């Protein structure tokens, strides 16, 4: 089975009008899924790279309405799943329902809200998502207890987001034996949705390693850093093929 490459980038970064082009170019470069980050003033789960990209995007004038507008312009051209990653306050303030209506309208596949943990995600959220054909993805970490892993697997209708390490996003380290043991442990769980490993995946080696234990992996900070100066199609494709090289698919 093909291993999935999911690329994250921040909406409105590096330029306010870059969003739509980056989505299409990623798709053209052959990625399997895209995660668009809705820039936020207080991104608790993110390391320096994504924080800085979010700050720049906000300074550029990015906001929720504008992102929906930008996506509307390309919605008929998008063929791969596009997820929206944000923080719960952004969803909450926009209006739980209105936000989901908009997501559906522009063809979003699902949501990732790292600070909306299981326990606060309730029937109300579930129904609104369902009514708008939206999926949701929850995170598992090395410290997540067994019964909770089962529960998260059940509730994640998009994919299960396996956080590779106890860390914020963007740590550039090799994958340790300790992490391998954790990946092995998660591999034994049977979920209805796919498992993707994220956080700290930054090159073809870490991507290949992650793919041995999951259905694919997510790269965020490394891609955000890569397009800082140059978000041309050529540069995006260079990144994507670089990550893919050496990975049996």
């Amino acid at each position, binding site marked *: 089975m093909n291993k999935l490459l999911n690329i994250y980038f921040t909406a409105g970064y590096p330029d306010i009008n870059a969003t739509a082009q980056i989505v299409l170019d990623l798709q053209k470069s052959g990625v399997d899924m895209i995660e668009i980050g809705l820039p936020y*003033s*207080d991104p608790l789960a993110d390391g320096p790279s994504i924080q800085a990209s979010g700050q720049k995007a906000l300074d550029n004038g990015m906001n*929720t309405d504008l992102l929906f507008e930008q996506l509307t312009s390309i919605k008929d051209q998008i063929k791969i799943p596009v997820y929206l990653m944000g923080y719960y306050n952004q969803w*909450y303030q926009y209006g739980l329902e209105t936000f989901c209506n908009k997501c559906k309208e522009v063809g979003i596949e699902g949501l990732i809200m790292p600070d909306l943990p299981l326990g606060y995600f309730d029937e109300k959220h579930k129904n609104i998502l369902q009514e708008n054909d939206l999926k949701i993805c929850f*995170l598992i970490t090395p*410290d997540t207890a067994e019964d909770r892993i089962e529960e998260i697997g059940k509730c994640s209708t998009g994919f299960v987001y396996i*956080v590779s390490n*106890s860390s914020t996003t963007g740590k550039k380290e090799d994958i340790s034996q300790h992490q391998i043991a954790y990946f092995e442990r998660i591999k034994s769980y049977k979920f209805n949705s796919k498992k993707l490993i994220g956080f700290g995946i930054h090159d073809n080696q870490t991507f290949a390693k992650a793919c041995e234990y999951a259905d694919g992996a997510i790269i965020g900070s490394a891609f955000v850093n890569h397009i800082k100066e140059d978000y041309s199609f050529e540069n995006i494709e260079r990144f994507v093929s670089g990550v893919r090289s050496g990975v049996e698919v």
Partner: protein
Amino acid sequence: MTAKINRMKADERGFYGEFGGAFIPEMLHKNIQDLQERYEGIVSQESFQKRFKDLLKTYSGRPTPLTYAASISEELGANVYLKREDLNHTGAHKINNAIGQALLAMEMGKTRIIAETGAGQHGVATATVCALLDLECIVYMGSKDIERQSPNVRRMKMLGAEVRAVYSGSQTLKDATNEAIRDWINHPESTHYLIGSTVGPHPYPEMVAAFQSIISEETLKQLGEIKADSVIACVGGGSNAAGAFFHFVEDESVELIAVEASGYGLETDKTAASATLGTAGILHGSKTLLLQTKDGQIEEAHSISAGLDYPGIGPMHAHLVKSDRVKIMTATDTEALEAAKWMARKEGIIPALETAHAIAALKKITFKPNQNIVLCLSGRGDKDMQTYAQYLDNE
């Protein structure tokens, strides 16, 4: 400390009315769950309480006095009692909570303590307790605050703590808190995050309020036959207010007044009046009243006082305000400066700039004759001398 009451405690879901909860990334779930499950058991142990109370007494110098402020009382035509938290070791109420949480952290097997600080009082208190108990200590502080509260930065370093400057976002308390939370995400096993105010995910607000409840516990005893009519405290995140209100909150005959910083004024965008102007949203793991845009981006707060310069308020206070149990008042930067001078000249007490906001409210209230007012004098003004000196020079 374990009173039968009260509204300072969260419900079984970690909420105070509609506010509170624990909106945290999964990476912190285990740590928060451990705290939720274990903290009450640990702090209710007799041995814990003994050690805690002992340090409060022999190390911090409690009980702190309740001072009758004769000159101010005469001027106002009311009886003003000052609860002298400024006389604690390290100069503010913050040490009460720092001692409590550090002991708790040790019981939980943690060896590394992280903290956020705004004015630096909580950072100093944490650094102090960590030195005493031989714990590693890292304090996150906004780069702007490092500049305006430099005496406290020097104190923390003298005590052996590492002070990490935070350059992201507002470069003040809000982003120092973000950075501390990120540190905790990266070091979940060794580290306890020693939050200094009644903010953060459940059980922090409740826990901090409980450790600070010693303030009102002593006040009640010290008042004896005297019946308090009003209790006044300044509020940023709300820890001294929580402590000052704690044992009064279920007695509806006592008026509770929280004073927040309105900065340049409520009509400007340079303000920290989150209870007055804010809307419900999520920050630092709990749902509360916040200064935010319609998109849910958290706005920068402004106050001359680094300890009140926070765009939210503790969730229990949000609930107490919304349910009309606590009355909110505001004081501007200038009113606070003026009030600090008034207190210094009338009573010979130089208050912290945070406290000065509560003092400023005294001048705005119409008192009944002989009304008994308790004002929580939460900290001393040594750290603010540069700001005060500038103010006097410019007069």
